[in-house]
């Protein structure tokens, strides 16, 4: 039983860490496009901005359960199977990417626009402004937002049990709810609490170091 709890923990960590990584990368990319295309951005493009803005809102409106099921064909196409922890990473990433894009966009918007103007004034290119000014200045805030993302994904991953993703959420549901093993459910919940605490603490420490 403890072996199964251990395996469920590893599955959760596997799903959350990989989907956090992928949605961080894709969300960052999307945020860069949003911030550049926004009115008053580096390359204003109202049409593109409105389309992406609406797309992000649309994806974020879906309940995760529904999105996960709707994405089954996409998942099979990408990872070759529709069930399991690896399969769960696809809907987790797709659900979290627009969320992360908004969080990173918010971090970028906190950067003092005067600093961007100063960089333009000595001839920095758009790419240099994004990676050496915006990213540099926003990094502490992006780190904190990544902790928010990872914790949100931990919550989503509990639902991945529905497509056989396993993990602590599924463990707690299967044993605690279906088999009345309240003790095992408590263990699973305690582990989830510990993981949330660990993610947030890491985020805070890193934020303080970077600031």
């Amino acid at each position, binding site marked *: 039983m403890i072996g199964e709890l251990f395996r469920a923990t590893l599955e959760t960590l596997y799903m959350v860490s990989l989907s956090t990584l992928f949605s961080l990368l894709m969300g960052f990319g999307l945020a860069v496009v949003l911030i550049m295309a926004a009115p008053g951005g580096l390359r204003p493009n109202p049409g593109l901005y409105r389309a992406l803005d609406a797309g992000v809102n649309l994806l974020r409106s879906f309940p995760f359960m529904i999105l996960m099921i709707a994405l089954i064909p996409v998942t099979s196409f990408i990872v070759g199977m529709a069930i399991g922890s690896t399969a769960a990473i696809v809907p987790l990433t797709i659900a979290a990417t627009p969320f992360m894009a908004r969080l990173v966009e918010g971090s970028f918007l906190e950067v003092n626009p005067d*600093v961007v103007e100063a960089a333009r004034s000595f001839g920095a*290119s758009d790419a240099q402004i994004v990676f050496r000014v915006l990213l540099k200045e926003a*990094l*502490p805030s992006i780190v904190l937002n990544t902790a928010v993302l990872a914790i949100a994904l931990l919550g989503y991953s509990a639902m991945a049990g529905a497509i056989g993703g396993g993990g602590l959420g599924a463990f707690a549901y299967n044993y605690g709810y279906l088999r009345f093993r309240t003790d095992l459910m408590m263990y699973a919940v305690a582990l989830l609490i510990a993981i949330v605490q660990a993610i947030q603490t890491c985020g805070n420490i890193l934020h303080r170091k970077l600031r």
Partner: protein
Amino acid sequence: MIRVRRLEKHYTPGVPVLRDIDFSIEAGEVFGIVGHSGAGKSTLLRCLNGLETYQGGSIEVMGRQVKDIDGAELKALRRDMGMIFQHFSLMSRKNVFENVAFPLQIWRWPVDRVRARVMELLELVGLTEKKDARVQDLSGGQKQRVGIARALALNPKVLLCDEATSALDPDTTLTILDLLRDINRRLGITMVVVTHQMEVVRRLCGRVLMLNQGRNVALGDVEELFLAPPRGLENFLEQEFTVIPGGTNIRLAFPRDISRQAVITTMARELGVSFSIVGGRLDRYRDDVLGFLIINVAEAELEAVLGYLEKNKLYWKVLS
């Protein structure tokens, strides 16, 4: 160096921000752009290095039409034009050294040359000891020194100053103005100074353009503008003098060659009149001191006094 012809700028068609602006700036000059807030002076400054676009007229900077260039050419123009800002615009996560080094890194200078150049610049602005300090730990004056060092890093030909001392206290303002004046003299760098502080104009600028609601209201030599302010600009140029009622109050201004002569006492002796001195001030200009004096003359002696002032070509004006 810079030639602006019939410049027009608007954000919304029909609502001009700048209208029919004409001026030229020669190499090595310190040129002021003054006006109340909202007059369009910061916008005009940003048109010079292409941070703002314009809709009509032309701006030629170092032989290049700002409107016609983009990409690499525009970046090269900006490399040759440093800029300093009201709120310093330093990067909060870089220390003093890294902030000054940043433009050099953007232009891919090799590491050893960056180091040498940054140390040279920090010495110029007097911040060698602060090189590892965090920007947040600096005073306002020190932050602006970092801004100046950063703006000069790429050896620009022109330095654009956008309200560079407006966020500083009066003492710090003077030290920053002295530093800028010194840089202008030693490096021969052309400066365009946007400000609403008359102190800055007097201490730093040789010529000045005055803007009001996006229009040119005066353009000329600073001393001349202060000695004989064009109609409507008196209050703008100096705080109003408080005058006593009765008699006639005359404001006298003394240019450099007359400043040191005893004009007033000579007049009193030659005309045999008496008058009261009701106000006065000495102002330091770039390299000169200009004097202002208000005298109150009795009606009976007014004609003789005005005749004397006219004959001796003094700058004077009857205050109402």
